[in-house]
């Protein structure tokens, strides 16, 4: 549909708009914001959260992963920590955990689509990253190990960043606190997610955002202090 045709379509639709608005207002009124929380700014993550809620995950594992009753604490799960796009979470969702000492075994969700599994996994990772960010930002600053920071950089950062290009003299550009903030929550990702192609003509921004979220949910305080110590030397 081209833009002109789209305008004509909108004018035609206008007559039906009041009832559409009415339906929308009704559905918004029914939305349980007291339980689910206000809609997230990112509509994709909001959809992921709703999938997490609709399949009953939130009922046991908690809306923000604080478990209710005997459910597994996904904030502390090693499996979740190493999951990428649902590759480990998905198989568990599909078959459940029938053998367990708990009174209610984890149900199986064999009817989930691959997309639904990715959505559920994405929301779980988002919650973990959000919580870890808050925890690490509240930690008092410590002294890091330069060599360990360099090793961490080579393993986790060097495939996308370069100390000769975007990270050149980064230790002069930011002070210690600013570096810590940039590591945990890079300024480039503080804007709403966009599907617009990046200045490189691709979607690396989306990839980068995903990679940083995976890093963020698993950073330890020591990791962060080590990277800060290393980046401080790049002047």
């Amino acid at each position, binding site marked *: 549909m081209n833009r002109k045709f789209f305008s004509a379509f909108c004018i035609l639709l206008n007559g039906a708009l009041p009832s559409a608005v009415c339906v929308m207002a009704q559905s918004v009124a029914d939305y349980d914001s007291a339980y689910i929380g206000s809609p997230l700014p990112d509509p994709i993550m909001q959809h992921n959260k709703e999938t997490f809620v*609709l399949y*009953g995950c939130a009922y046991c594992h908690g809306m923000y992963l604080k478990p209710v009753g005997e459910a597994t604490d996904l904030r502390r799960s090693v499996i979740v920590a190493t999951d990428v796009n649902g590759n480990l979470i998905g198989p568990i969702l599909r078959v459940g955990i029938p053998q367990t000492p708990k009174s209610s075994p984890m*149900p199986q969700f064999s009817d989930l689509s691959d997309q639904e599994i990715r959505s559920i996994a994405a929301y779980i990772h988002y919650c973990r990253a959000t919580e870890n960010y808050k925890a690490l930002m509240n930690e008092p600053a410590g002294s890091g190990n330069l060599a360990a920071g360099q090793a961490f950089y080579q393993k986790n950062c060097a495939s996308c960043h370069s100390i000769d290009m975007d990270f050149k003299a980064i230790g002069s550009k930011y002070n210690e606190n600013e570096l810590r903030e940039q590591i945990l929550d890079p300024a480039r990702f503080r804007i709403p997610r966009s599907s617009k192609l990046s200045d490189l003509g691709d979607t690396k921004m989306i990839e980068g955002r995903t990679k940083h979220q995976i890093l963020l949910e698993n950073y330890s305080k020591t990791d962060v202090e080590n990277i800060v110590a290393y980046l401080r030397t790049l002047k």
Partner: protein
Amino acid sequence: MNRRDFAKMVLVGTPSLLGLHGCSSREPNSNSNLTLDADSPQGKVQNNSVVNGVQFGIQPFCYHDLVMNRENRPELLRRIVKNGFSLVELHATWCEPRFNVAGVSAVEAREKLREWRISAPPDYYQTIRSEFDQAGVSIFTYYVNMDISYQNNFIDYTDEEIDATFRAAKILGAKGCIGSQGLSATKRLAPFPRKYDMFMSVHNHSNLSDPDAINTEESFVKAFAFSPEIMATFDTRHFTAANGDCLAFLERHHERIRNVHLGDRRKNQGRSAPFGEGDTPIIEILRMIKDNEWPIIVMLEFEHGTLRTGVKEVQSMFDYCKRALV
């Protein structure tokens, strides 16, 4: 027990004549089925969560956002009334203080709770009962897990504490206590309800890997054998997930079933589902209870996900049941 006995049993616990207060505080658009009887000089609250002879109640787990503590009890009552129920299965946490706070170990918290239960004065529970009476809601069962707790992982109920729990339930007007305890704990509890002219209900889950769990018809039968006062709170969701036949179970054991936790799940340990989307024969269960005039209370309960409020979801489930019982 025939239907007349059943009516007596329910009405004995039906809220007192103070219902005017509770009703006046209801929202104007409330869809509650509790109404004042205009012909009654006392203005008695009618127990109207009966649909074509089937008595309904609610398991408050339905209100997922509402933390189960005594501070939230007024809001719980408001929602129960709004949903139009006159019977509730009340979990002890709606009545008891919480001791598991920061700085207190699980063992210490457990000891404090025990001491509190044993020493709680009768007036404390009488006041809670009055709150429910005034709102037109009867407490049918009192839910306490007197078993290995997954939270602190030890069996530690003393006889004194079990007695205190039944006494509390009695004052609240409950006809029985219920818990999700296993067979070994049920055996130990079996002599207690008789002392209070009450029953002790066992509630099934779907864990088939634990030989002590209440999960299948066979496990229920073992529990029933411990004492005539051991009854069933039959959870249709978990029974379905454990591949049980709900209708066959009702047919064979209806005399030992005091209430049903009515909800839908998929078989083979499947997920909870909105009414009509799982494998639980919800409509058939309701028709069976109605057509046979069994005095089994239907407690609505759901664990499936929804974007709607608990009140809206319960209303939709209750409407489903009403359509099934036309």
